[in-house]
């Protein structure tokens, strides 16, 4: 069984502080959905409202079409995986997994059988008799997933469950989580501040900042077509130029910046650019090129500050004429050395379809 989750005009307030502001999201059943945002943006608060540990101050949470108001966490068709996993240290591994069944009054033999099946699913067969403390970090992680799945939830909620693991294990668990989700076929709602996790695993990502949903889209769209200045600056790396819109033509905007006039795709968020607006132009380091006389829609003059060799990539940093922000260019190492030296004056170029212009707004903290 799987269910969709709908947040309908949800506001969550703690006194004066607004943790979630008019959130409207529809998470389809069977989907892997992520909330991505910096810490303190309100994503955990939203998750707690879905799991039932808190109630929204305004608006509705609907799971499978049913209004969840007044229904406690023990009665909702959700299961939550905590950031610190919160496994029961005084129970054996199989008892942890079978806890939800014990609650339902399932008999001992049946509980043990179900626990063994789930241990099989998470690739930890024959580990049921161990204590939780005897397991490694990744194994504990999988036991927490099995314990939540034993409750047969319609929606599984995950609150940054990978943050305690080391990098390698984290990358491995991403694939594992995605595979488990596809096997069990229920809705996963995943909370993270790690964009790599959100972009690789999710069907859809909601980017959040200061209690506001900035954009909901699939990972590609979030990266290539950000709706707001926050999304453009938070997801991936971006070079930014400030300016004023002089003209809108179709899907493109022309922005006058201190470094010259730039043509870029117009963002498609709620707030639309129109002539005279303050705007930011974003261009990814991998889309910024050395002009070398070729034809580019936009050109800027810059001085090389630093060149870093990263194996498969060169990262080059510039001081851009007419801008107080430095710019960054990354280029694939194709075996040839770079043609430029530090302190060289160079011309850089990028095309309008690789750049994006958004309304001026809050940026993600560096």
């Amino acid at each position: 069984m799987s269910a969709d989750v709908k947040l309908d005009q949800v506001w969550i307030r703690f006194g004066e502080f607004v943790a979630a502001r008019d959130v409207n999201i529809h998470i389809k059943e069977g989907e892997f959905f992520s909330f991505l945002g910096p810490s303190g943006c309100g994503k955990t608060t939203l998750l707690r409202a879905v799991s039932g540990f808190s109630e929204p101050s305004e608006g509705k949470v609907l799971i499978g079409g049913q209004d969840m108001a007044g229904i406690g966490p023990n009665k909702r068709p959700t299961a939550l995986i905590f950031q610190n996993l919160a496994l029961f240290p005084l129970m054996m591994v199989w008892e942890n997994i079978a806890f939800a069944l014990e609650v339902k009054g399932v008999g001992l033999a049946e509980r043990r059988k179900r626990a063994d099946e789930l241990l099989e699913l998470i690739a930890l067969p024959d580990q049921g008799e161990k204590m939780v403390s005897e397991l490694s970090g990744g194994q504990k992680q999988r036991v927490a997933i099995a314990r939540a799945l034993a409750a047969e939830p319609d929606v599984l909620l995950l609150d940054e469950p990978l943050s305690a693991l080391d990098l390698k294990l984290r990358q491995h668990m991403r694939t594992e989580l995605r595979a488990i989700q596809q096997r069990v076929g229920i809705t996963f709602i995943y909370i993270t501040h790690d964009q790599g996790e959100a972009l690789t695993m999710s069907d859809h990502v909601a980017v959040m900042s200061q209690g506001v949903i900035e954009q909901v889209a699939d990972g590609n769209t979030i990266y290539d077509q950000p709706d707001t200045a926050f999304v453009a600056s938070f997801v991936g790396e971006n070079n930014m130029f400030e300016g004023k819109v002089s003209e809108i033509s179709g899907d493109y905007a022309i922005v006058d910046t201190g470094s010259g006039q730039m043509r870029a795709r117009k963002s498609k968020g709620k707030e639309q650019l129109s002539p005279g607006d303050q705007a930011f132009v974003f261009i990814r380091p991998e889309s910024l090129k050395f002009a070398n006389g070729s034809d580019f829609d936009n050109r800027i003059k810059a001085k090389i500050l630093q060149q870093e060799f990263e194996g498969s990539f060169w990262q080059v940093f510039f001081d851009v004429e007419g801008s107080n922000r430095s710019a960054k260019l990354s280029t694939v190492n194709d075996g040839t050395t770079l043609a430029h030296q530090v302190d060289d004056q160079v011309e850089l170029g990028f095309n309008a379809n690789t750049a994006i212009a958004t309304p001026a707004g809050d940026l993600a903290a560096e």
Partner: protein
Amino acid sequence: MVRYWQDFFRKNGPTLALYLLISVTCWMLLMIVLPQLFMLDFSFRTNVPPPQWGTEAHGYTLEHYQYMIYGSAQSTDSYNFVDLSVFGRTILTAVFVTLIDVALCYPVAYYLAHVAHGGWARLMVMALIIPFWVNELLRAFAFKIMFGSTGIINNFLVGIGILDQPFDFIRNGVALYSGLSYAYILLMIFPIYNAVESLDKNQIEAARDLGSPWWRIHWRVVIPHAKPGITSGCTMVFMLTAGALAAPQILGGPSSLWFTQIIYQAFNQAGNWARGSAYGIILLATCLIFVLLVMKIFKIKLGEIAR
């Protein structure tokens, strides 16, 4: 071993190390080991007046322990029913009082640790502690007045018509049980509070999220975690209640004797220090065995209690 002492002296410096060593040794020897050894020795000797102590007349005997079980030779009863029944009732009542205290203190400790916040929690702790600034005797007398036939409780119950005439709380033991339960309540609350407080709140939420009703959360998650604290509190309350003197003396009814009162009588009224010692040793040994047994049953190690 030599290394250990060398390290000990280097870490603390010679003055502090010597002070610690001497004070701990003195405390252990003078306050704990020697008095108990004297008691043990006395309990196995005949009861003679002090001038004859150390003479031939002050020999070893088992008569005091036998007296506890069989009574005096002149008595017609085959067993010492009076002392044995008082002893049994004391232990039983102490168990009962301990159970009352667990039932009272666990919810309070849980509330303090996981529900109450900031100023309110501090206020509650103060409300628990401040009554214990009042002397133990005064507290016992206050209970006696409160539970008396014209005390506030009887007046209230008669006033609102629940009772036709005052109920004798003292003769029926209610005053004694209440007084004893209250006397050592802090020694139950704080160990449980410490244990419960160290429980990760997420575990409670996780259990709830998995569909658990509140009682199962306590049964499967909170109580197992708090078990060492509960045992520690029970041990202290049980031992102290079984050995209490003031509360039974003041709050006990005319017919209910506490075992410590018999020991007191032996020492101070009958002038029979030997029998008093023997009875004291019996009480101590019984309490110890009882506590160790309970710990065995609930699978608690001594080290966990001291944590």
